[in-house]
């Protein structure tokens, strides 16, 4: 699985970060990136409204207490709780895949990758990468005192760390 690009959207669906990790990707105009981000945000919200009840993740509905499960805290990299139970999760096409992770606070991390079929372990791979990105984000963006919340991310350390993680060696 090759990583093409990373997009980060704030709560309101505004694009706050966009980076390509693969040479040869066609550049869009700044405005087109914003439109693209807004569109994904919108489609995600619509998807969350039309997901049939039968497909919804019912672990929460079953009244499972956070305190009685081992699902969190127990792994070297914790399984991120995704607040994206009913919204758009991923898109598969012949040319690329898109994976989407949304934090409890409403920030969306979107990964565009090479197509890799319907193998479920690719989804896990993508989830793992998104999880690592979230940790890098919490470190190098949120803890940078001069970063203004909700605003575009211009943090060199974040660029560096994500590139180290995502760029093919």
């Amino acid at each position, binding site marked *: 699985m090759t990583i093409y690009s990373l997009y980060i959207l704030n*709560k309101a669906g505004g694009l706050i970060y966009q980076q390509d990790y693969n040479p040869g990707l066609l550049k869009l105009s700044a405005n087109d990136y914003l439109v693209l981000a807004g569109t994904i945000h919108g489609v*995600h*919200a619509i*998807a*969350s*409204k039309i997901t049939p009840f039968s497909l*919804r993740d019912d672990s*929460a*509905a079953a*009244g*499972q*207490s*956070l*305190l*009685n*499960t*081992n*699902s*969190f*805290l*127990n*792994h070297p*990299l*914790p*399984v*991120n*709780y995704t*607040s*994206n*139970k*009913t*919204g*758009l999760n991923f898109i598969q096409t012949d040319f690329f895949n898109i994976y989407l992770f*949304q*934090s*409890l*606070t*409403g*920030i969306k991390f979107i990964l565009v990758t090479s197509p890799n079929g319907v193998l479920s372990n690719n989804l896990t791979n993508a989830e793992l990468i998104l*999880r690592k990105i*979230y*940790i890098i*984000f*919490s*470190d190098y963006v*949120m*803890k940078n005192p001069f970063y203004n*919340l909700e605003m575009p991310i211009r943090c060199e350390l974040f660029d560096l760390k994500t590139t180290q993680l995502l760029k093919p060696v």
Partner: protein
Amino acid sequence: MSKAVRTAADEIWKNRVEKINVELFTLTYGSVVSQLCRDLNNNYCEVNKQLEIMGENIGVRLIEDFLARTGAGRCNSFKETGEIISKVGFKIFLNIVPQVTNWTDNGKQFSLVFDENPLAEFVELPDDGKAVKELWYSNVLCGVLKGALQMVQLDVDVSFVSDVLRGHDQTEIKLRLIRYLKDEIPAGED
């Protein structure tokens, strides 16, 4: 309270959290508070307010770190929120586990009681007669809690009830749930 959660929080504290020297930490916080007192001419009510604002700014950032590092999900009840704040939140950031107590019947208010407070380790309040009545030395904690909870869509009122620094028997912070910010819950959750 599940033992697994406690062990896991302990593991995070031990292996996955960067530590700093406690003297550096308490002295840094101490100098912030004392400088605020000087800047605001010992208007302690204003100092409390400023500390809370600083705390909120920390909280809204720190919550992402908390979520990313623990992988915690949304709590099913405010009761659970209380347990997680104490056993996981305070544990991994300050290595203390305040007691969660004084629940009201409607489950919307509780207190955190601190046996120890790393912020106030070496502190004695100034004896101008005013500080012991007005200053909540560790008020930054209230702000942190308020800011962090707000980011996960809980509007909570957080305030000190008592503080051993003022000569009270115990240090207690009260948290009262005002409401869930339902409109702000991101799409995709039920």
